[in-house]
């Protein structure tokens, strides 16, 4: 079995760190992983994207994915080409604070459903924007994201409440891992601890709280990767 996720955002949101933590956690759990990162010369604000492929064994994948089972969306700026690669039956885990409107706009659905005032923690933090609210068929006119499930998480709001606004990416990562079961929360925390360099050690505890809070914000295993994906 093999499954992919494309992570997209803008520089400064921690997308590359999240992708590496996910890939390292998968390897720590005995799986194979491939991580392909893509970012420009800028540190902040530019396009940043990463692909993680996880397999039980015999991983075989192009470093630039032709298609993906899932997406992790921190920012809408570079989301459109990722949306075009989503396969039906996949899942999108998105930072509702920034992305919800874009997701729905792409799908030809009005923004009012998940407007900013509706995307507080109460509504979205608990994965209320699953199939019930948004429906199973958030299909774009081109059908690109046909049949993909949505998990919208107010990652920045949750990170803000934790006093760790920089850790919003880890909130979304915790949510992604919990909803899909791609890796365990403990493995993610361990990978994050390995990755954060000594001079950033002061952020480790906040990052851990963010991962745990993200995992708690969604229904565990609501969109399981290892049963949904076939090799």
């Amino acid at each position, binding site marked *: 079995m093999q499954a992919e996720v494309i992570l997209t955002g803008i520089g400064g949101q921690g997308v590359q760190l999240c992708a590496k933590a996910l890939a390292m956690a998968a390897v720590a759990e005995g799986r194979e992983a491939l991580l392909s990162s893509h970012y*420009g010369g800028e540190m902040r604000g530019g396009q940043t994207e990463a692909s993680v492929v996880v397999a039980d064994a015999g991983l075989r994948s192009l470093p*630039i994915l032709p298609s993906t089972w899932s997406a992790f969306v921190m920012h809408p700026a570079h989301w459109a080409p990722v949306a075009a690669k989503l396969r039906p039956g996949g899942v999108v885990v998105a930072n509702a604070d920034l992305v919800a409107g874009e997701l729905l706009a792409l799908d030809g659905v009005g923004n009012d459903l998940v407007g900013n005032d509706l995307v507080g923690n109460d509504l979205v933090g608990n994965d209320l924007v699953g199939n019930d609210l948004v429906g199973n068929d958030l299909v774009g006119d081109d059908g690109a994201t046909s049949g993909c499930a949505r998990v919208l998480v107010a990652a920045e709001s949750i990170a803000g409440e934790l006093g760790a606004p920089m850790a919003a990416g880890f909130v979304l990562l915790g949510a992604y891992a919990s909803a899909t079961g791609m890796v365990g929360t403990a493995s993610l925390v361990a990978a994050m601890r390995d990755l954060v360099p000594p001079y950033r050690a002061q952020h480790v505890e906040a990052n851990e709280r963010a991962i745990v809070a993200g995992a708690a914000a969604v229904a565990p295993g609501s969109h399981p990767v290892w049963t949904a994906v076939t090799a």
Partner: protein
Amino acid sequence: MPASLMQGSAAVAEAAVAAGCRFFAGYPMLPFTDLLEHMARRLPEVGGVCMNAESEIEGVNMVLGAAAAGARAATGSCGQGIALMQEAVAEAALNEVPFVVFNMARGQQDYFQATRGGGWGDYRTITLAPADVGEAVEHTQLLFHLADRYRAPTVLYGDYLVAHTHMGVEVEQRDLGPLPDKDWALDGTRGGTGRSRQIWTWAMGRTDAPGPGPDAHWRRLADKFDGIAATEARSAQHRTDDAEHLIVSFGTSAPFVDHVVDELRADGHRIGSFRPVTLWPFPEAALAATVAAGPCAQVLVFEVNAGQMIDDVRLAVAGRAPVRPIGGVSIDGSGMRQGALLSAAAIRDRVLAAIEEVPSP
């Protein structure tokens, strides 16, 4: 137990260390910078030296000096920085000083630079173009071996996808066979007897000990490069049996082409792919044999540049089938890697369009 997750640059650095590289010098430039950083961390741990030079020119000349003293040494950059190094690479080729140049290129536009010499004089550089990180590890060790075997600078043609992709890799020291002694090395072992040695292009020697002279020197070098061309070409093929359409690509483009070949085979197209693993020497004989053996109606060349390798493909195919470009210039917005053309979907579209319109012979 899966292999540990390693960035391509780290894996190449480990492979270089495993191959015995103990001197590295370079100047940072994406996407090469990570390799320099890994070498800076690893070489001191194994008793080696890594210098962050003040420029590419200084870096390559440091490497020339270390290699002339007998060390396994390497430098690198992307094509822009390697352009600056060409004089030293040419001197090394003509003076027979072995080292490895890592081109972590920003795309596929350095094919001519890698395969045509680049400096002055009659020389070539053995150039390996890995398809992925795993192969880059193999190639790195092989390039140090070939450099020493032939006393010549060699080139790894990598890119962003090689340098920045993380995957499970195991780096093991490979035994590639015996090598000649470096009895030419300027390592001080003559004990200050005053019998200085020269490594000098014209090979004139000294008045009291004349060398073979420039004519003999150049002829010997030409024979050496002819010998390399005849014996060191490497290639790979994918589903070429019965292929009516043959796609030629190199480096990290090749897995994308192979992916498209598999897709189109599933749709009933008789299509295959051919990859030069060594860009120089270009595997002319293997490509010619592949074209001659099958019902090849056309050869399609996919390279992410304005058309460079296609010259070598045309020379090898030599009119046995039409040769058509299906690649082109495509640069990512960051300028650091290939753009949108390097995708399975884009390649598939171009291949399908070419299949629909096979030119008449």
